Structure formats: structure tokens, C-alpha cells
């Protein structure tokens, strides 16, 4: 069956994930070149492009990191291709260097950067607001609020970028990326083949003499873009009254529901902003005329609010402007319909709505046992962490990195003492050991190592740092959904013929103290760590074993044994007795029944790590998960 994202008939309506709608929007714009680094909540965009790539008429790549992704697309757009680059919000920090100059150089073929922000930190280390990058880089910004807009704005952003040569920001938030809604398809544009790179050094080489006029051209372009925002169909005024509301992004959905539910729909004037930067000043000036109060509703930073305040000051308007400086809305986390309704009532001078009643009434909710995410049964990271902890205990500082293995923070493994960003395990770990002389063990996954670990490792060699780096090579990018990286030999679409092998790479930068083990072999892993512990300087342990979820799918791995508790583990839970593996391993397949430890055969993955830890655990035939 042909995929509707590629072959859907114009006029048809499909239920699409926000991220799928972005893919369709790009296809309708005639997309020719897609680069990315995966990261929640953006990942379904590149993963969908990848899955459809055998039939699609575009070039697609999982780039090594976000900076590389944007640079590859930056070159492709200079060669005339219509390009989309996708990443999560923190990825834009990695890509910021090319970004801030690409907006000088321009995008002759068109270039849209998707930044998937994460208010509420659902799956991120911070909740930075990347609309500020639009201001910093001088690029137009679109903020969709539903699936249909995700498609339409992607198409509009790509088309605009190509027309004006302006790299453009498509800024989404988790709720928009991961909502599903009806999307009506339109006819795709067919673009001519990329024209090829046209030499013009004064335009494309930002040496200081050329960069200064390039900056002026960028500022002029922003004024042209502002004119477009003034008349954009994504910026819409409705309603009437002395109280006005300006909302952007997903806040517009909450506002619409709040107005509908409170019956305040007729009482306020609303400006829905979808094309949010450059700020359509004339439109907003007209909107503010006659208003006594203006409420600005946007999640995270008061970006629009601050700009609108400056505009009102410039125009000498004396209306009251509410938002988040100082209130009533917060500068952190996600909004929802109730919060927006509360802010609306404040703006209208109405009493606060009653606290939302819920079915549990006023009874205090008894705290329930939490269900934190955990390393899966059979995860090789558990085996590596167990071995490292067996040897180092609490006598090393564990410098962690970003991936599934960050879950090693949980007891009993407790293998994450600090974390900054992608690749920081090595460099920040080096800093700790150099400053304090403490033993440092860094942990980094294969994809993160390729992303930005290599530079830190080269630095550690050059500056003679003292660190044991454990590269947790599970042969895929597991955390974000098993995307390929340069080190894999299998992808979801077949073999990778050009694997970059980590061991010779590490040797190539001059490291000689290297051990490579399968962590599911505890004895060998413990021996390797003991040896490396006795050495000093930069040491690398490569712990290689595929992610079992990926191995089942990509390698067809089947294990025909499961573990069971054979002896009398009556003392389950007591430290130092048999049953201690319950306390040291935290495998999700373990449980306690009638005071005895047992292993759920349906959850056991057959990794047989526990057999090496406890003599009372044996293997028997059975289809491991």
C-alpha cells in the first residue's frame, strides 16, 4: 500500500502525527534534501523520511551530529536544493555555529531548520526556548499549533525560504510534534533539479570585508520578511472588545478551548500568531488600538511579550500588558486550557475560576509507588555498570552522557554522578579528574561517541588527562528509536556497508590502553576493568553487545534459554545472601513471591548475566523475549 505521505491524493484527509504532517508539508513543498540528528520529540520526522526514502525523491541522511547536519544542508542549499534539517531544541546549540553564519550566507535553494522544543522537559535536560535563536540568528520563525498547521507551515516555511534565500526556523513543541489530528493534503510542488553551486565569493564567503555587507543584507531581508508576516494567513485577528489576547504555538489551542468553554469567546479580541518573527508590527499596532488590556500567551520565555511591550512603548500606547513579567502566566513548563482560562479571567478582571474539581474529590492522593523508566531486561549496559560498580564501588566519580544508559543513575547501579550534554562525559570527566585527582569513569554510548565524544577524547589524549572511558557500544542509537549511526552494521533498512569501527578509531588517536569485551561475559569484563584501573592516563573500555530490542528486529536474534531460580532463595532481599542479585542487578524480570525471588520467564531476555552473579540461578529451555 502506497504511503499517503508520499502518494496521498490532494483533498484527502488523514489522521497524522504532528511529525508526520511536517514530513507531508516538506513533500508538498518539493523537498530534495533532508538531514538530521534524531532526538525526542523530533525523531519521527527523520525516521519517517528514512522509512520512505526508498520510494521518495529526496536525499536523506542521519548526520553524525546537529552541527554536521546543518552544514551538510547548508551546502546542499547553496547548490540549489530545497533542504530540511531536523533536531531537538538542545541540538540547535550544537548547530548554532553554522546557523548564525548561514543566515548571512543565505539559502539559495531554501532551508528550514526544525527545532523541536520540549517545555516541561518530558525527555530533555532543559526547556530552553529556541524562538530566541530566531532573533539571534536573524531568521523568520513559524510556530504551528495543530497537525494541519504543522503541514501547512512546513510547506510555507520551505517555500518562503527558497523565495527569499532566508534560512527559516520551524519551531514546534512536544505537544505539537506528538499530537494527532486530521490533515487535508494538497498537491505537491515539483521542483527542477538543483541548479548547482554558482560561484560568487562576495556573497558566500564571510571574510570580514564581505561579512559586513552580508549582515546589512540580512537585516534588509528581515524587513522584507516582516512585510510578509504582516499579511500572512497564519496571523489572524478575530473577536472584539477592550481586552485583547495574542497567542502563539500550542497556547493557541488552549486559548481556543478556554474561550469556548468559559463562554468568554465574544468578550475578547484575539490575534493568533503563527508566523511569529519578524514581529508583524503594523498588524499588532492596529490590534492594540483601542485595547485597555492585552494578554500575551506563549509558553516559556516572554519573547513576544517583550517585543510587544517595546512596540507599545514606541507607539506611546498606555494599555496594560499582561503575560509573565510579572504574571499571571509562568515562565516555565507547559500551559493547559485551565491555566489559560485563569489568565483570561485575570485579564478580564473576573474572579478566579473554581479550582478544577476532580473525581478524587478533596481526598489527598496517597503517594503511589513510582514507575520510573528502567534499563530493559537483558540490556548490556546493566552488565557493564554492574562490573564497573563491582570494582570501583563509590570510589570513582561517574561522568555520564546522554542515552538509555543515563538510566544507570537509578539505584542499585548508581552509575551517573553528573551530566551536562552530549559528549560531555569525556571532557567534563577530564576536568573533574584534573582538578581534583579523583578517579573518574566516563560512560558514553556509540551514537553519542560519534556525535561529540571523539573531540573530547582527542583533547584528553593531547592534554594528558586521567580518565577511564567506557564506550557502551550497543550497535544502534537505542534511546531515540534505533536509528543508525556510523558504527552500526545493520539499519532498519538493511546492512551498513561503511561501518566506522570504534576500536581502530580510538587506537588511531594514540590511545594504547584499550580493552574490548562483551559485557555479558562478566568475568572477562571484570578482568579488563581491573587491568585498566591499575593503569593511568586515558584508558578506553569498549563494551560491545547489541541492544536486545534491536538485535531481535535487525539481526533476528533468538535466545532459547531463560533464567530461573533453582536454589532456595528464601533469604531474597537480604544483603550478602543468595538473592542479593535482587539488590545489585535490578533486572525488570525479577520479582518476589511469598518472600522468594523469582524470574518472570515472559520478561527474561536470556542474557544470562544473573547466572554469573548467583549460583542459585540456572538456565532452562524457553523462548526468551
Amino acid at each position, binding site marked *: 500500500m502506497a504511503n499517503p505521505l508520499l502518494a496521498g491524493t490532494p483533498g484527502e484527509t488523514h489522521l497524522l502525527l504532528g511529525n508526520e504532517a511536517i514530513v507531508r508539508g516538506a513533500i508538498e513543498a518539493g523537498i530534495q534534501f533532508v538531514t538530521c540528528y534524531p532526538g525526542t520529540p523530533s525523531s519521527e520526522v527523520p525516521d519517517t523520511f528514512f522509512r520512505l526514502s526508498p520510494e521518495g525523491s529526496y536525499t536523506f541522511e542521519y548526520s553524525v551530529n546537529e552541527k554536521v547536519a546543518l552544514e551538510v544542508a547548508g551546502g546542499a542549499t547553496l547548490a540549489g536544493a530545497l533542504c530540511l534539517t531536523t533536531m531537538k531544541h538542545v541540538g540547535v546549540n550544537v548547530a548554532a555555529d553554522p546557523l548564525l553564519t548561514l543566515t548571512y550566507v543565505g539559502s539559495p535553494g531554501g532551508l528550514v531548520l526544525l527545532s523541536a522544543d520540549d517545555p516541561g522537559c518530558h525527555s530533555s535536560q532543559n526547556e530552553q526556548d529556541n524562538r530566541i535563536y530566531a532573533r539571534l540568528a536573524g531568521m523568520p520563525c513559524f510556530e504551528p499549533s495543530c497537525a494541519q498547521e504543522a503541514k501547512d507551515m512546513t510547506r510555507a516555511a520551505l517555500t518562503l525560504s527558497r523565495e527569499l534565500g532566508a534560512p527559516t526556523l520551524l519551531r514546534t513543541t512536544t505537544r505539537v510534534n506528538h499530537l494527532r489530528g486530521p490533515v487535508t493534503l494538497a498537491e505537491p510542488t515539483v521542483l527542477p533539479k538543483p541548479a548547482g553551486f554558482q560561484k560568487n565569493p562576495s556573497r558566500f564567503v564571510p571574510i570580514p570585508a564581505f561579512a559586513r555587507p552580508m549582515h546589512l543584507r540580512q537585516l534588509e531581508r528581515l524587513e522584507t520578511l516582516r512585510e510578509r508576516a504582516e499579511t500572512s494567513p497564519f496571523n489572524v485577528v478575530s473577536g472584539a472588545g477592550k481586552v485583547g489576547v495574542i497567542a502563539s504555538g500550542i497556547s493557541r489551542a488552549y486559548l481556543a478551548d478556554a474561550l469556548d468553554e468559559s463562554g468568554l469567546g465574544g468578550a475578547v479580541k484575539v490575534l493568533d500568531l503563527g508566523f511569529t518573527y519578524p514581529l508583524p508590527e503594523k498588524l499588532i499596532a492596529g490590534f492594540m488600538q483601542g485595547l485597555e488590556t492585552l494578554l500575551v500567551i506563549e509558553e516559556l520565555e516572554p519573547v513576544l511579550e517583550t517585543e510587544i511591550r517595546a512596540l507599545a512603548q514606541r507607539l506611546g500606547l498606555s494599555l496594560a500588558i499582561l503575560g509573565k513579567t510579572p504574571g499571571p502566566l509562568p515562565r516555565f513548563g507547559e500551559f493547559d486550557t485551565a491555566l489559560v482560562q485563569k489568565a483570561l479571567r485575570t485579564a478580564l478582571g473576573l474572579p478566579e475560576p473554581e479550582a478544577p474539581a476532580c473525581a478524587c474529590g478533596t481526598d489527598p492522593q496517597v503517594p503511589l509507588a513510582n514507575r520510573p523508566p528502567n534499563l530493559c531486561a537483558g540490556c548490556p549496559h546493566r552488565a557493564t555498570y554492574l562490573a564497573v560498580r563491582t570494582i570501583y564501588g563509590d570510589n570513582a566519580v561517574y561522568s555520564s552522557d546522554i542515552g538509555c544508559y543515563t*538510566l544507570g543513575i537509578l539505584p542499585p547501579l548508581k552509575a551517573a554522578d553528573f551530566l551536562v550534554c552530549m559528549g560531555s562525559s569525556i571532557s567534563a570527566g577530564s576536568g573533574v579528574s584534573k582538578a581534583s585527582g579523583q578517579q573518574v569513569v566516563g560512560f558514553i554510548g556509540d551514537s553519542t561517541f560519534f556525535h561529540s565524544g571523539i573531540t573530547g577524547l582527542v583533547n584528553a589524549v593531547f592534554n594528558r588527562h586521567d580518565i577511564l572511558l567506557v564506550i557502551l557500544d550497543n550497535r544502534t542509537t537505542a534511546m531515540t528509536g534505533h536509528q543508525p549511526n556510523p558504527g552500526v552494521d545493520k539499519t532498519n533498512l538493511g546492512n551498513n556497508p561503511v561501518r566506522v569501527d570504534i576500536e581502530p578509531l580510538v587506537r588511531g588517536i594514540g590511545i594504547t590502553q584499550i580493552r574490548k569485551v562483551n559485557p555479558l561475559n562478566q568475568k572477562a569484563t571484570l578482568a579488563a576493568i581491573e587491568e585498566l584501573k591499575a593503569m593511568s592516563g586515558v584508558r578506553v573500555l569498549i563494551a560491545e553487545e547489541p541492544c536486545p530490542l534491536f538485535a531481535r528486529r535487525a539481526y533476528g536474534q533468538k535466545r532459547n534459554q531463560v533464567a530461573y531460580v533453582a536454589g532456595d532463595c528464601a533469604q531474597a532481599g537480604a544483603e550478602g545472601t543468595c538473592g542479593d542479585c535482587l539488590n545489585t542487578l535490578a533486572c525488570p524480570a*525479577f520479582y518476589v513471591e511469598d518472600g522468594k525471588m523469582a524470574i518472570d520467564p515472559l520478561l527474561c531476555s536470556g542474557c544470562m548475566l544473573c547466572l554469573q552473579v548467583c549460583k542459585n540461578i540456572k538456565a532452562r529451555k524457553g523462548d526468551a523475549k
Partner: protein
Amino acid sequence: MSTKLRIFMTGVGGQGTLTATTLLARAALSAGLPVTSGEIHGMAQRGGVVESTLLIGCKSPKIGLGEADILLGFEPLETLRALPYLKPGGLVLSSSETLPPLSVATGKESAPSVDEIRAKVTARCASACFLPVRSLGVQAGAVQSGNIALLGALCALNVLPFGKEVIAATIRATMKPKVAEINLKALDLGAACPA
């Protein structure tokens, strides 16, 4: 306002909560309803909680505390945890079969029993229906199809603006024949429960 309907769904990563959500949303769209659904995942596939929403007649993909008309719990402890999202007079459909968190399974923490959960939930909503979702899934032919049994029970309560046949048609239209057959069976098994 009366045309709005908000359904909050909760379960454990890997249970298929999102598959059920998407199926229900597709069915609503095929019935011509203005539907939005939302999901929060990310690290959820590592055994954490997965929450999703389905809203009819709303722009927002999010359900706030006390806003859900219906709570679908694919795991009883998660049903109880999500109870604050249910509005007074709301309806609860839940699995009666536990999938305890690791800390509970290993005896480090305790959790209320299914009977305790059932009593708490029943006391606080207009109507509650507990069914052995995993067993029904196994009976239908695949444990994952248990979620569809819960949707079947929901249809039988006649609270959706479309009927079981719309979900059945969506299953046929979107799943491979073999998988569809199992899920259709699960839908029927679930639909027979509330009676």
C-alpha cells in the same frame, strides 16, 4: 460544549497504549468527528508510564486535572494514579491485571491490591468497569490485543459518539488481515464484558 468528549488513557510502556489511542482517533475521524489526540513518550518505552489523550471537539491535545470524561487504564495502578484527571461523574474502564513497577515486584515498595484499587476507583466515579484485559488479549490470540478489548468494553457502554462497528472497520482498514482478525476478536470479547 456538550459535543466535547475527553478520554484520558494510561498504561505502561510496551503495552500498546498508543496503538489503541491511534486506532480510536482514526475511528473518530472516519466517523467525521473533529478529533485531536496526544501522547507523551520518549523514555516511556523503557517500562515507564505512557499517557495519551483523545479529545473530540477540542483544539488542545492535552487533558488537565479534572477534565476527562472517560479514563481508560491499561494497568490498574496507573488507573489509580491517573484518577485526578477524571472529572466528577466520569467513567472509568480499567484492566484488572497488574503489571507492578519493579520496586513493588521486588518487594521494596508496596502498592494497593487490585481490590483496593477497584474500591477506591468505584467510590470516586459514576461508573467503573474492570476487566481482565491481558487474559482477554491472550484469549483473542495475542496479549497486546487486550487493549482493543478495553475499547470493546467502552463501545458496549454506548458513551462514544460512534459505535463498535466503526472501530471494527478501522481495524480492518489499518491492520494486516491476520492481526486484524485477532483484534476484532478482542474487540468482541471486551464488548461482552460490561453486561
